């Protein structure tokens, strides 16, 4: 089907300002991705999948400028022992980064892994293609084609500390495109941390292959610069008895669209995807999740909580697809918002599509204000109203934070939220 002219124009205008890195093993995948992108066209306002979130600023050739946050507070995960890798406006910062060697894992940069034969070639852009099957995700295809750098992380054992990727934002007009590939071998286990505002506009893709019996923990915070924009994708494929747990805290940012696409391909696998976001004012946060059960006895769990105030908007689109034969599927999805005033809104579209008969799937979506009874109870014990509201807000988000397995990381996230709540107290 031919694309509408406006879409064609928008797509070509965007492509025109990008350069495809040439040479090496990724060229084939990049060229194919570009063709894919041209076929789909970049998202427009009329696209069903972008019904609640206007993609204009993610699509236009140059990003809107984003002021830099005054970084007086310490960065997330500061106190955690980790292998630290830093990108500034999407450019690798060797000086600020640790040496990329750690037992149990090999880490290379996409921009430098130029050999013709590379393990990542079988994954780069490949999980993204699979994720395009049900719904087009053109920003991910754009990413595969034009990513300037990223990390190729091959987990072969159990690294002793988390691999941490910090994204710093230094230029008000930066436009960053990064693509990571993570392969976790059978029986291996690792934790990946991500944090920071990254750029004025950030397009990030992470393809994750979790082999049989492997485990990957992913905890990220999307920082704080109010005007930054981001479109991110996680494409994960899970083997038998594998585990993937991903948690995201989003604080501030004019626009964030986090798409997570999971395929459960081996029996007895488990995936947990959770998110907490706090938005004040000019803030739109969109979680778009698509989980496909294609094996027996797998569990998927989605827990998304959003706190919105001063006209902030939260979006949740979540789908569980249970294919024929994916018996004994246990699918759970909850999306909830706490609206701290009447100007804020939460738009949710939960979906179930089930082709197997022996499954247990549930989903729920709610939107509510602060519980007045609880607020009065706290105040009657002497807790001042703003502090009581914060306590209840934190309690609301706690269910999502509880999805993080590692207690220290969970504490770290809670601290972030507390700090935000204090900064944004009414």
């Amino acid at each position, binding site marked *: 089907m031919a694309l509408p002219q406006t879409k064609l124009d928008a797509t070509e205008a965007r492509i025109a300002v990008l350069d495809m890195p040439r040479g090496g093993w990724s060229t084939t995948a990049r060229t194919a991705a570009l063709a894919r992108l041209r076929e789909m066209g970049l998202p427009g306002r009329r696209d069903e999948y972008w019904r609640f979130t206007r993609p204009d600023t993610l699509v236009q050739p140059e990003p809107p400028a984003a002021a830099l946050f005054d970084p007086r507070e310490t960065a997330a995960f500061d106190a955690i022992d980790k292998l630290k890798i830093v990108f500034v406006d999407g450019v690798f910062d060797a000086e600020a980064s640790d040496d990329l060697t750690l037992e149990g894992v090999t880490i290379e940069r996409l921009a430098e892994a130029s050999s013709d034969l590379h393990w990542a070639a079988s994954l780069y852009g490949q999980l993204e293609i699979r994720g395009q099957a049900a719904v087009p995700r053109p920003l991910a295809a754009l990413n595969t084609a034009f990513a300037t750098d990223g990390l190729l992380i091959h987990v072969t054992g159990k690294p002793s500390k988390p691999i941490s990727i910090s994204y710093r934002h230094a230029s008000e007009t930066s436009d960053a495109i990064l693509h990571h590939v993570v392969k976790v071998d059978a029986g291996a286990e690792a934790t990946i941390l991500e944090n920071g505002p990254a750029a004025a506009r950030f397009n990030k893709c992470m393809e994750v292959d979790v082999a049989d019996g492997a485990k990957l923990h992913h905890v990220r915070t999307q920082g704080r610069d109010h005007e930054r924009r981001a479109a991110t994708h996680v494409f994960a494929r899970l083997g038998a008895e594998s585990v993937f747990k991903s948690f995201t805290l989003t604080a501030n940012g004019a626009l964030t669209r986090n798409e997570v696409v999971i395929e459960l391909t081996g029996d007895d696998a488990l995936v947990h995807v959770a998110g907490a976001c706090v938005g004040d004012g000019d803030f739109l946060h969109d979680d778009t999740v698509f989980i496909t059960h294609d094996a027996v006895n797998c569990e998927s769990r989605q827990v998304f909580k959003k706190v919105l105030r001063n006209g902030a908007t939260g979006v949740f689109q979540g789908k569980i697809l249970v294919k024929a034969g994916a018996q004994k599927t246990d699918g759970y999805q909850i999306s909830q918002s706490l609206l701290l005033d009447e100007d804020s809104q939460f738009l949710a579209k939960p979906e179930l599509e089930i082709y197997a008969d022996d499954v247990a799937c549930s989903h729920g979506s709610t939107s509510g204000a602060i519980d007045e009874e*609880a607020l*009065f109870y706290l105040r*009657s014990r*002497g807790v001042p109203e703003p502090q009581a509201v914060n306590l209840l807000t934190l*309690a609301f988000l706690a269910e999502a934070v509880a999805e993080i397995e590692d207690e220290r990381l969970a504490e770290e996230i809670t601290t972030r939220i507390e700090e935000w709540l204090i900064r944004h107290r009414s």
Partner: protein
Amino acid sequence: MLEIKNLHVSLETEDKQILKGVDLTVEAGKVHAIMGPNGSGKSTLSYVLSGRDGYAVTEGSATLEGADLLDMEPEERAAAGLFLAFQYPVEIPGVGNMTFLRTALNAQRKARGQDEMNATEFLKLIRAKAKELNIDADMLKRPVNVGFSGGEKKRNEILQMAMLEPKMCILDETDSGLDVDAMKLVADGVNALRDGGRGFLVITHYQRLLDHIKPDLVHIMADGRIIKTGGADLALEVEQHGYAHLLEEVA
């Protein structure tokens, strides 16, 4: 301590008068009981005193040690020394009981210009008080009142009271839903706090509780007014004859 004068209260949303002129003074060191049929306005009185939304005071006043209670936010009333043990304690999922109490205690101390209590001191104190009330460590860790039995909730109210050491304690049917042993614990908790400087207003349906907490005065409330005041034996009279004859007496 607590002085209520000619208090008239209506609902904010509908034109319904609930308290129709309540006069009541609780002196420091005294225990007053309020008894009365369901719907007579006992809980409304306790809510209005503690500052809950939804009520409009149309006439009258209420002061605590001379300070105008009705002019204060609920948290200010608490810091001034007022405490209400709720008839229906509220469940707060996600907020740990311990965190809740420590936040409350330190907020009150801060409001009064005192130093915050550090974690070690607080833990020591709460453990001791919880033990007296037969509240186990698990209950302290759980979210506030979530999954607590009726009796546990009431004991938790008394624990809060013991920790916050208010000057004026209002207990709204703290005895309802308690078995004999639990009632004894609650009564002991209250009696432990009795001293010359503290006032109590104990709202109850039954005389039972008053066997354990000896009141100095008993008031009977009906249809938004205190219709009779007497000594401890007034509670016995209610227990034996019910409210009907008292109501007739005044009618």
